[in-house]
């Protein structure tokens, strides 16, 4: 019941908000934050009950839904899903608590946010392919409204672009899912069944096409170069908490989907094309970092670093899926790294986008050149930004390093050349983040910012919690690795 409750509570909260016409904005925010914390608590409980050495999928719940189609309401988690879902729940709680301009529509805003929480967590908790798809698509709806109605700049244009582009990805995904369903015998959407069956094994040309469908679908969501152009625009125009969710949670659906579906259900085909996926990932790593370095807008810059970091995640997944090459230890290391990267990137980039939101609420601009010298004016903001930036550039002692080190070492055991090229990415991210810190916080303080306010208590407390976790994972990642590692072993060992 834990997982069902996790999904039901935010949805119930959203329904309550629809009927709560007379509440004041503060009450609404408090209520939404409280509701958003509940799934987090439930998932922590699930974490405590999860036995890393037990079965692959645990806490399974299953209800018949459309038995004739082989579809059911099936929930369950392995270590990777649990880790990513828990991180997502934390980020949602943080996003709800972070102050934001709701344009007088607080009720609607928080209702959409809670709706989005349910459908986002649903993606990670589903054990049914069709259910996964439904949640995957409903995300677009929630995010579309958050951007279009509460964004700034050209929100409707950005939201539409985001919606259509990712919908196109969903379409490719749907086709591939149907193909997988039809190939299974008996027809089923049960993920466990599909993993065990490997329905497309040995069906060479068809299986390649299906893989292409999955990869395109998830590559748009992740996003990988060259499917990424919806991302920066959507980020720039989205309100800060939505941006944090978009980067922290929604992008993970692409990489999580890659692991859960094509990687697990089509091992053989995946292995065949793993090298190509790895190359695409390395291109994303370098391209994302370089383009980020060329941005003068801080939010666009952070958005492009997401492409870089998600490139590392995909690299880890591709390497782990290269069944025929490399040692099992290296591949398992790569997949563990990919899972940690998902968690780390969610926390770190989520924080960075929230910070960007604080800049917007104070200066109505993301242009780095108009800021400067804020270091002495806003020490807390400086400290938090510096911590998040160093985490993002992979400094040891912080979460990003643990992930990237795993991925790099694992990749080296399989594709040494790609590892070497991909490693250059950490140099470019270092350059771009240090440059960002320099432009924002060093130098002379422009006169117009003489009244620049430091972080408020509500902003600071959210950032502190997120970044504290980044430090904990960076220093003592054992608790996370324990949960993830065994699942990675299962996946690498072929069951």
């Amino acid at each position, binding site marked *: 019941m834990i997982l069902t409750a996790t999904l039901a509570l935010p949805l119930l909260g959203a329904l309550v908000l629809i*009927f709560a016409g007379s509440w004041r904005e503060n009450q609404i925010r408090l209520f939404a934050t409280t509701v958003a914390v509940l799934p987090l608590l439930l998932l922590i409980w699930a974490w405590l009950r999860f036995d890393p050495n037990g079965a692959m999928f645990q806490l399974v719940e299953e209800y018949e839904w459309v038995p004739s189609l082989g579809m059911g309401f099936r929930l369950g988690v392995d270590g990777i899903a649990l880790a990513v879902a828990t991180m997502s729940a934390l980020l949602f709680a943080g996003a709800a608590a972070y102050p934001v301009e709701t344009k007088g529509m607080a009720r609607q805003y928080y209702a959409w946010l809670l709706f989005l929480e349910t459908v986002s967590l649903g993606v990670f908790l589903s054990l049914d392919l069709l259910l996964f798809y439904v949640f995957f698509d409903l995300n677009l709806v929630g995010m579309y409204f958050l951007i279009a109605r509460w964004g700034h700049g050209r929100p409707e244009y950005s939201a539409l672009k985001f919606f*259509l582009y990712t919908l196109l990805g969903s379409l490719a995904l749907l086709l591939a899912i149907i193909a997988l369903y039809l190939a299974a015998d008996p027809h089923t959407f049960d993920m466990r069944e599909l993993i065990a069956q490997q329905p497309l094994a040995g069906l060479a040309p068809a299986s390649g096409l299906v893989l292409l469908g999955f990869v395109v679908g998830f590559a748009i969501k992740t996003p990988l*170069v060259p499917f990424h*152009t*919806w991302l920066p625009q959507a980020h720039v125009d989205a309100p800060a908490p939505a941006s944090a969710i978009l980067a922290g949670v929604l992008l993970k659906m692409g990489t999580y989907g890659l692991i859960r579906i094509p990687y697990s259900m089509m091992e053989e085909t995946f292995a065949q094309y793993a090298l190509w996926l790895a190359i695409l990932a390395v291109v994303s790593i370098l391209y994302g970092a370089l383009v980020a370095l060329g941005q003068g807008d801080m939010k666009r810059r952070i958005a492009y670093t997401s492409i870089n970091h998600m490139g590392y995640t995909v690299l880890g997944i591709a390497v782990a899926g290269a069944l025929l090459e490399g040692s099992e230890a290296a591949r398992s290391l790569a997949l563990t790294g990919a899972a940690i990267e998902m968690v780390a990137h969610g926390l770190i980039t989520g924080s960075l986008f929230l910070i960007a939101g604080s800049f917007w609420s104070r200066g109505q601009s993301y242009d780095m050149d108009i800021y400067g010298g804020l270091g*002495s004016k806003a020490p807390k903001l400086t400290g938090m930004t510096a911590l998040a930036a160093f985490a993002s550039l992979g400094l040891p002692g912080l979460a990003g390093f643990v992930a990237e080190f795993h991925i790099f070492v694992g990749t080296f055991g399989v594709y040494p050349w790609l590892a070497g090229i991909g490693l250059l990415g950490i140099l*470019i991210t270092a350059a771009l983040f240090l440059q960002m810190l320099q432009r924002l916080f060093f130098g002379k303080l422009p006169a117009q910012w003489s009244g620049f306010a430091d972080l408020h208590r509500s902003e600071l407390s959210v950032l502190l919690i997120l970044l504290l976790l980044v430090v904990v994972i960076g220093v003592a990642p054992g608790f996370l*690795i324990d949960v993830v590692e065994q699942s990675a072993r299962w996946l690498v060992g072929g069951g």
Partner: protein
Amino acid sequence: MLWATIWLPILSALALYRFCQGRGASAGSVAAGTAAIGTALLVGAGMLQGWTGSFAWGADIVLQIGLEGLSSAFALTLPLVAALVLVYAGVHEKPLGRARLLALMLGFVGAMELLVLAQDLLTLLIGWELVGALSWALIGHHGSDARKSAHARQAFLVTRFGDLGLYLAAAVAFSQTGSFSFEALAQLEGQALGLFVAGIVLAAAAKSAQLPFSPWLFSAMSGPTSASALLHSATMVSAGVYLIARLYGELSAVSWFAPLTIGLGLATALAGSVVAIFQTDAKRLLAASTSAHHGLMWVAVGAGYPAVAVAHFIAHAFLKAPLFMAAGVAGEYAGSYRLTAMKLGRVMPGLAVAGLLMTLALAGLFPLGAAWTKEAVVTAAGHTATYYAVITALIGGLSAAYCARFQLMAFGRGPEGMADVHKLESGTIYSFTIVTVALAALWLPGSRQWLEAMLDSSLPAFKTWEVLFSMLCVVLGLVLGRWSVTVAEKRQQEGPAASVAANWFGLPSLGRDLVSRPCNWLALSLASLDDRVVDRGLEASARLGRRLAGWNSRVGEWLSDLGPEGSARFCQNAADYAGSRIEPRLFDELPLGTARVSGRLATYVRGFQSGMVHHYYTIAVIGFVTILSIFATGELF
């Protein structure tokens, strides 16, 4: 228990930052100094008790720390030097941001201890990169000057480029041995071993400012003086030497390691000495000298005597830190670090005497301790080939030349004056001087055996002719330095060749033109390519879609009653109606819930009218047709 050695400075740094803000100068001094002394005591206890530590991240990855001969020497020297530097920093630096500076320096000590105690490559890498990041924070400490933060960034990027070598080495080690631990490295062989050594040498060269990475140390001069004193003596720069000394056993298994290390070391020592001779900025002169002396340590390691490198490191650490500190006091008084503006021998006679003793030690003049360790380097080099010994001795002469120049220009006899030197500033410098002088005991018989036992490895025996030749070089160098000061005073203006030489022979601008400018250009071009081309393709397909949709709707008119569009339109009209007619009425009449739900639905559906419906619709139709065709050909699978 050994972990305490790392946590003590780091946690005290946090506490100091929290509690010493706005307190008086000596409070910070005392607190930071105490923390550093505590760290030294912990290292001492660890050595006596044989402490070790390990910490598991996962099944395959375990962090390990421990103390053995070489690492003990580093681990102990570091907090002792740091303690005095921290006490000095507490009174010397400006009050604004002092607590932060002290905290960063203490944290630096913790990170460096981690690096030194590491028994595996991952732990080493963690300490290694933390040291780099903290040096960024230290160099850019006074953030109001944008140039300083640019320098900090340059220093960090150059050393991080080297760090990539360490990442590479760790990955090679894991892929070959299945672990990161130093013990397993013996299993490496062939190509993998070559790659491993290349990675380590790259990382070490960048950190210890060997060619071609040396200029970053100049950028590092933008930081506060106390940070320089710490960076150049016992931390950061010496990390590179520590690494190749610590892993000498594995590294030397490759035949090209020795010639490469000796070659790099000699080239850096030579170039650094020449740079120092032409430098007119006190701190930069000392910085070039740091590169040069670390070059000598590289020579010692390459020649097969890592213990000699460690001995020279210790002697160098105890004299380079106070030289920076003295230069800081002098620069404070003179208002700039330009040597031509100093000549403070009569203003601060005590410091002038201390400076004299330390510059003579740095010059390598008998009977000071640093001279003994430098002779050990010469002898070690001579064990590989006699001409190496001759070159090293000649470089020692150049070293003497810039030492004489520094001392005469900074603390020579000039006009009288009164300087306000804090007791703790001079006190710490004197303490260092006492240690430097006490190291002269190394020349006593029996000291060699004691040092060998202490470092747990053998030291080369001196040859008389080498020592005599070397001392001759030193004396000639001192004379040369004296002469160069006279020339400089006559000429006033530096020639162009001299200023090029003083700035690392143009190496920094070469780096700018070859690496950072092209990289920035590439980033900007890619960014505009991304906006103009990649995204434009998407826009174009969107336009195509719109056109298709337009065509589709014209044709669709026709079939509107039969086709799916008809039903879509019907839905819309119904929703419109609901939105505009029913919904307001419901709102009036039924104040509760359901109305709002339908209102929401209505706005939602109305959203589809804004042109978006065409896109959505086109996609849906394509999708629908495809799905149907797949269902139809479902047998295929």
